């Protein structure tokens, strides 16, 4: 379990995290979403004791990270797959980190095999593709067989086969009862992996919700109607309580009335309808709407000018 408690982090005039609180529970994959610059990496760095918060705290299994002895046995993490000395072999890289936490050579070989890096483990990491480095980073996170795992954008650079593998791995790690906390700026990525979502924007919590509930609450669905009498139809639907906005040539995006109700109303008044399509917003759309709102909200505040995108 990871507890983030009223966390704030300021870098000079820039507020990266603003009174952020949430809890990541074991046994499921928790997606950590937000646009670039929302504060995901900073949050993870504070959790891992790398950055000191300006206020608040983060606890892993009830402890501050900085007070742990051999922490890799409790928390495994991958922040940046490129953060490896390019001249060192994957094996020596993992071995040196394993030694720092009293982890055996056998375990190093195990995780190299598990992540499919064993065949190239003696080659310098600098010669690896980003996808291969991600695998080395995931191997490193798994070194201590930890109950809590933190991954920052782990699918960057992975090929489709690698992405498929990572999804399965995260799910199986969660199924074993581990806490799996995975950040991404892409909703579509989380859609297939995460059961729970924590969404932040500009360092603030926007949503902390189960995946399906998030879709239900946030997904906007509407009906696309095309009619040569669009103007007339719009007035009619408005009169019946619908919200109508224009959508392309002769098109109307209608919310508040479902497709059968629109069809019946049009038939009653003999308005010709050429197209009637119920549309369900994707999860990506729901996420964009949510984070867009946070950006809009802040955009008017002069104090926020010049913050990172």
């Amino acid at each position, binding site marked *: 379990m990871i507890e983030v408690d009223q966390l704030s982090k300021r870098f000079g005039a820039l507020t990266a995290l603003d009174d952020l609180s949430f809890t990541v529970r074991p046994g499921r994959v928790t997606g950590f979403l937000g646009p670039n610059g929302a504060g995901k990496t900073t949050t993870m760095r504070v959790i891992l004791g*790398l950055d000191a918060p300006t206020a608040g705290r983060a606890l892993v299994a009830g402890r501050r990270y900085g*007070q742990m*002895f051999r922490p890799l046995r409790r928390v495994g993490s991958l922040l940046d797959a490129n953060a490896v*000395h390019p*001249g*060192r*072999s994957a094996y020596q890289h993992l071995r*040196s980190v394993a030694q720092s936490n009293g982890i055996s050579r056998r375990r190093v070989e195990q995780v190299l095999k598990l992540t499919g890096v064993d065949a190239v483990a003696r080659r310098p990491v600098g010669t690896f593709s980003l996808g291969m480095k991600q695998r080395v980073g995931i191997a*490193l996170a798994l070194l201590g067989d930890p109950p809590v795992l933190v991954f920052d954008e782990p699918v960057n650079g992975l090929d489709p086969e690698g992405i498929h593998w990572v999804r399965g791995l995260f799910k199986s790690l969660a199924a074993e009862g581990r806490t799996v906390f995975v950040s991404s700026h892409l909703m579509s990525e989380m859609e297939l992996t995460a059961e729970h979502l924590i969404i932040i924007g500009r360092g603030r919590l926007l949503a902390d919700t189960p995946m399906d509930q998030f879709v239900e609450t946030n997904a906007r669905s509407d009906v696309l109607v095309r009619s040569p009498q669009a103007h007339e139809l719009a007035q009619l639907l408005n009169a019946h309580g619908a919200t109508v906005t224009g959508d392309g040539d002769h098109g109307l995006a209608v919310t508040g009335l479902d497709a059968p109700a629109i069809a019946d109303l049009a038939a009653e008044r003999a308005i010709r309808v050429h197209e009637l399509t119920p549309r369900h917003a994707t999860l990506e759309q729901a996420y964009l709407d949510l984070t867009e709102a946070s950006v809009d909200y802040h955009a008017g505040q002069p104090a926020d000018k010049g913050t990172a995108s």
Partner: protein
Amino acid sequence: MATRDTLPVEPAPPIAIRLIDALSSEWTKLRSVKSSHWLLIIAAVTAIGGSALAAIADQSSRKPALADPVASTFLAWVEYPILAVGILGLLSFTSEYTSGQIRTTFAAIPQRLIVLMAKTSVAGIVALIFGEALAFASFLVRQAILTGHRGSIALTHPGVPTELLSGGLAICAIATLGVALGAIIRNTAGAVAALPALIYLPLLVLTLPHPWNDDIGKFTLLMAAYQLVSKHAHAGLLPAPLSLAVLIAWPAVALLAAGFLIKSRDA
């Protein structure tokens, strides 16, 4: 959720175990990159090569025998390898800050002073052993060239063992100074530029008018090393124990600053 006052306190394991973890990790890191090997090769070539060249020059010189054959050859060989060994020390931090690996290191060992101690010890011990080996090798090469010449001295000549030990010590001091510089500057190019500035620039005070040159000069790193072996210390130079203290104080002060910064800065 635990409140602020009821965090479980983990009994701290003995510092020896934590140090052994960190030392074994740092030792693996040091020997698993080519740059370490190259730097030691460069140090060896410059030290032995420097001694050989100085010896050849002495052999063909018609000047009377040197008054202090021990001290006068000391700087000839120790001046060159210290740069390479200092860079070896600073790279232990800057290579990690530059690549971002420092975050993996601090996530693995959150007690950052332990990391500083381990990196300092590994670089320091490697430099000490290597430095002593270089001191002997340089001495033997020099004597082999000078065989039969009046400048030739035996390994048992008074002052020679001190010179050899001091050479290794000076190289160890520079390596640990390098580690501290790396932790402070965090950037390879910056630290590589700062290292020679710190070693050689203070020597400019030796060009000041007397007695300023000696008064300030004796506290420079290289002069401290030199004074350790100089048997004919003229008035104004520091006695050996004080020179040793100066030699240790340079890296010690830098390491204190590094320790403070490494704890207070975000990784």
